[in-house]
């Protein structure tokens, strides 16, 4: 158990340090996210009432796109500088290492993403309850996005046109997360209970956490081993 914690904390600390040093990896998706929300607002027009109605959809679609663009930061730099091969040689189980890398990716991206989404949602005048629901769905949804995303990222690593391919592969798999999150926000706007959606998201997150590290590790071995 101690060994497991040692390996995990070593990988997480190293990756977090990398994110701190290469801040653009975590910051650029946020800018991208704000730009997409702005695109939605401009396309809808100045009618604030209509925009408030479709804002949950717009915000969540923007989150999905920003996440998809950002997924390759999990493995790509390690692939380029050869760290991945070293990790393969490590006696520690690869799923543990991969799981830790996904966890640090989530730490580095989810926090800022939640903060900026809440600020954006509040700024466009969504009710407090809806903003709170957005934060809750993001808190449960973002690990799902990172976990499933790691599989597609591992499958497409180092391929020509990998980013596009990754989006094609992963976006259909994000559908349940999108459905439960936006439906929770719609219910919140109508003062309906949101417990069911939250439970579903939590269940999905648990499932993704228990399966995705193994799938990603296998995918990495297939592609590079």
């Amino acid at each position, binding site marked *: 158990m101690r060994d497991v914690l040692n390996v995990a904390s070593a990988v997480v600390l190293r990756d977090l340090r990398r994110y701190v040093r290469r801040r653009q990896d975590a910051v650029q998706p946020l800018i991208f996210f704000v730009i997409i929300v702005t695109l939605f607002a401009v396309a809808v027009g100045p009618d604030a009432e209509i925009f408030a109605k479709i804002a949950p959809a717009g915000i969540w679609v923007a989150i999905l796109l920003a996440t998809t663009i950002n997924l390759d930061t999990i493995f790509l730099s390690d692939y380029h500088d050869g760290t991945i091969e070293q990790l393969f040689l490590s006696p520690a189980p690869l799923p543990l290492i991969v799981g830790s890398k996904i966890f640090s990716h989530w730490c580095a991206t989810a926090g800022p993403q939640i903060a900026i989404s809440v600020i954006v949602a509040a700024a466009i005048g969504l009710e407090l309850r809806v903003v709170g629901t957005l934060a809750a769905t993001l808190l449960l949804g973002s690990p799902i996005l990172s976990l*499933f995303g790691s*599989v*597609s990222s591992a*499958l*497409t690593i180092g*391929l*020509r*046109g*990998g980013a596009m*391919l990754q989006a*094609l*592969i992963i*976006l*259909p*798999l994000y*559908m*349940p997360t999108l*459905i*439960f999150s936006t*439906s929770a926000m719609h219910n919140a706007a109508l003062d309906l209970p949101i417990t069911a959606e939250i439970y*579903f998201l939590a269940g*999905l997150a648990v499932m993704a956490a228990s*399966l995705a590290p193994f*799938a990603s590790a*296998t*995918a990495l071995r*297939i*592609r590079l081993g």
Partner: protein
Amino acid sequence: MITIPFHKYGTPKYFYSWSLRLRPWLKYGCILLFTAGLVGGLWIAPTDYQQGESFRIIYVHVPAAWMSLFVYIVMALAGACGLIWHVKLGDIVARACAPLGAWFTFLALLTGSLWGKPMWGTYWVWDARLTSELILLFLYLGYIALQGAIDDRRTAARAGAILAIVGTVNIPIVHYSVEWWNTLHQGPTVSKLDAPSMDTTMLIPLLVMALAYNLYFVAVLFERVRCEILEFERNKNWVNELTQPKGIV
């Protein structure tokens, strides 16, 4: 004592020869069943009291929709065999399944939307089953795109297997979440095994058509697999003996 060498039938070489022997059976069985099913469905089956003649598209639509899911599962299982037990045939079958499954899905969507026009008054609605069928099509296209992007065949097949397995885990979740999200599609009428809410003269042609689709799938799949085998094993002796004209050394 006679023992059946199952492991032998799974090798590409033996698969090639025994599937070639099955070929006429599959071909004529498929043609026969298609004729029977279409005649039964388009002429013999009674007109639906509510939907009129346009209900007859189910004889093309419903089997295609069944096949779309079935082929995905076959693809994932074959891929898993290749991945776990390194069965070369599994890799080849999985690769050959993908375009077939994508076409079945497309056919189900196309016929569904043609049927939707007289029934719902519009070609497309964001109904739960239509949407989850569309997502299934996206999953197929993603798989095919991944296959195309990786040059090495074995790596491509094994990476595809991972994707197909992840997709299989997700299909029920996608299906039920979409169902929950919105439903307009009519409820299932055949799956209730004890008493299908369908007349027998309507039901039998549908089941015959389903069988015909299955045979068609197997026939075309074997055809594709044989082509892949020839390419895969092009450096092997037995392939050279097959493809070289006789008499030339």
